[in-house]
């Protein structure tokens, strides 16, 4: 893993250790946090010691959170870590210098805060992007104080050290990007080419995925290992199917036929009712949601595959993965009849041609024709 930024914490912000001590929080908090981070990031447990050692010496990281074409679900998910517990420590580690949704000032004051944060942490701040960026009509679909989303993104990212695309919209385009994409929405990666990007897709992403990733960066000052879609492997390395507690039923071939039949009640595999778990790489089955309470499959509904690219265009959520994306008798039946009729017509022509061939002195004529041609 390359070092993507030089130590950004040179002066003003205090080291986290000092900060915590001032708030009468002991080093044990770091130990616990380190153990938790190592656990969610699937790091070797011994790495926790390193994290616990590094974190107190880290300085608060400046973070700017931009919201574009989105539903705020990702922010909502992220703020679920704000309970008085371990993960909420992230808000002590990072300084949310600007956050479209939750900034405590508004209007010009907020804009000023953004400028100030960019100025003070030039080259060191992290930009978190929520939502896709509409390119259509010169960006007119997403305007803010006369500036387009494109403009805001470009200006903000210019001096950033890293961009984290939070949620499927910013990572892969998400719902706005889905066919027919009326606003010309694009994911962050379409516009930002010269900065490291971490994608944390999901609609929304799991809170711990967001905090875990930030913690890793703080503790190790480097990017976590990413997959081919720039997702941290520790969260997106395995398919939901592979870690699903219903997997044994899949292996036995026991499938629920509808979401409320006998099989469903027995907790059988939801493959047949369209579960996209086998092709969705996320931590839902292991970390679960709302602090480990449950996840969609556990609640009786197949996975929608929301953290995968183009999940909205992958056909019905209720069609089995192995089935045709967009056929069924209703949609393709007519075409099949048409195809059969067309085939019959071609066949009839072929037969008539063969009859003609049989009746005429054909061989030489035809073979000669071919030779000439």
């Amino acid at each position, binding site marked *: 893993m390359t070092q993507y930024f030089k130590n950004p914490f040179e002066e003003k912000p205090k080291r986290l250790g000092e900060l915590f*001590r001032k708030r009468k929080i*002991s080093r*044990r908090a770091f*130990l*616990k*946090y380190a153990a938790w981070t190592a656990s969610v990031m699937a790091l070797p447990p011994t790495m926790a010691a390193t994290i616990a050692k590094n974190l107190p010496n880290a300085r608060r990281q400046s973070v700017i959170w931009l919201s574009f074409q989105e539903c705020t679900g990702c922010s909502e998910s992220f703020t679920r870590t704000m309970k008085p*517990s371990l993960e909420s420590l992230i808000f002590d580690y990072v300084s949310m210098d600007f956050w479209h949704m939750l900034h405590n000032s508004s209007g010009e004051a907020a804009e000023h805060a953004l400028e100030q944060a960019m100025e003070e942490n030039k080259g060191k701040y992290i930009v978190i992007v929520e939502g896709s960026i509409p390119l259509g009509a010169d960006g007119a679909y997403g305007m803010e104080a006369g500036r387009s989303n494109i403009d805001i993104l470009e200006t903000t990212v210019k001096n950033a050290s890293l961009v984290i695309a939070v949620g499927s919209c910013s990572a892969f385009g998400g719902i706005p990007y889905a066919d027919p994409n009326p606003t010309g929405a694009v994911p962050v990666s379409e516009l930002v080419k010269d900065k490291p990007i971490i994608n944390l897709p999901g609609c929304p992403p799991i809170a711990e995925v967001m905090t875990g990733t930030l913690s890793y960066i703080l503790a190790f000052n480097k990017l976590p290992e990413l997959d081919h879609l720039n997702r941290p492997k520790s969260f997106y390395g395995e398919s939901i199917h592979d*870690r699903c507690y219903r997997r044994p039923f899949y292996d036995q071939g026991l499938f629920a036929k509808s979401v409320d039949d006998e099989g469903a009640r027995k907790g059988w595999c939801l493959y047949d009712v369209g579960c996209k778990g086998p092709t969705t790489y996320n931590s839902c089955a292991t970390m679960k949601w709302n602090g480990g309470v449950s996840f969609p499959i556990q609640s009786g509904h197949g996975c929608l595959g929301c953290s995968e690219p183009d999940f909205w265009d992958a056909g019905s959520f209720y069609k089995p993965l192995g089935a045709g994306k967009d056929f069924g008798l209703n949609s393709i039946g007519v075409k099949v009849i048409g195809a059969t009729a067309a085939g019959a017509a071609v066949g009839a022509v072929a037969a008539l041609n063969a009859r003609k061939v049989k009746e005429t002195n054909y061989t030489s004529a035809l073979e000669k024709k071919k030779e000439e041609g």
Partner: protein
Amino acid sequence: MMVKALQTELITLLEKYIQTGEEGIVDLRSLPMSPQDLIRLEDELGKGEVSASVDVTGLTKIWETQYAGVWWIRSFADADVVTYEQIVVCAVPELLKAHPDDISASISELRNNLNNSDEKN
């Protein structure tokens, strides 16, 4: 199966600790264990002499299992939501120890407090 395998793993970790003093950690959350497996493991290991709670950024319960040197650490977010769960092999878990930095801070704090009260008096 899983429980047996873990017990074997603990033996290895204990031996290593005795020989090298290196702490052993098993992250229970990263293992493909069912809730039932976890309960069985907990029963198998049982409870020993020491138990403690650490109340910082959520509650953490720590107890020594019936095997000396094998510690169970369970950390909560809310009342019953577990954030992480470990088995640690060592004499005393790090989490129970006061960190030297904190101890140093205690000196200055105590001194400050003493001075402040002196002034008041």
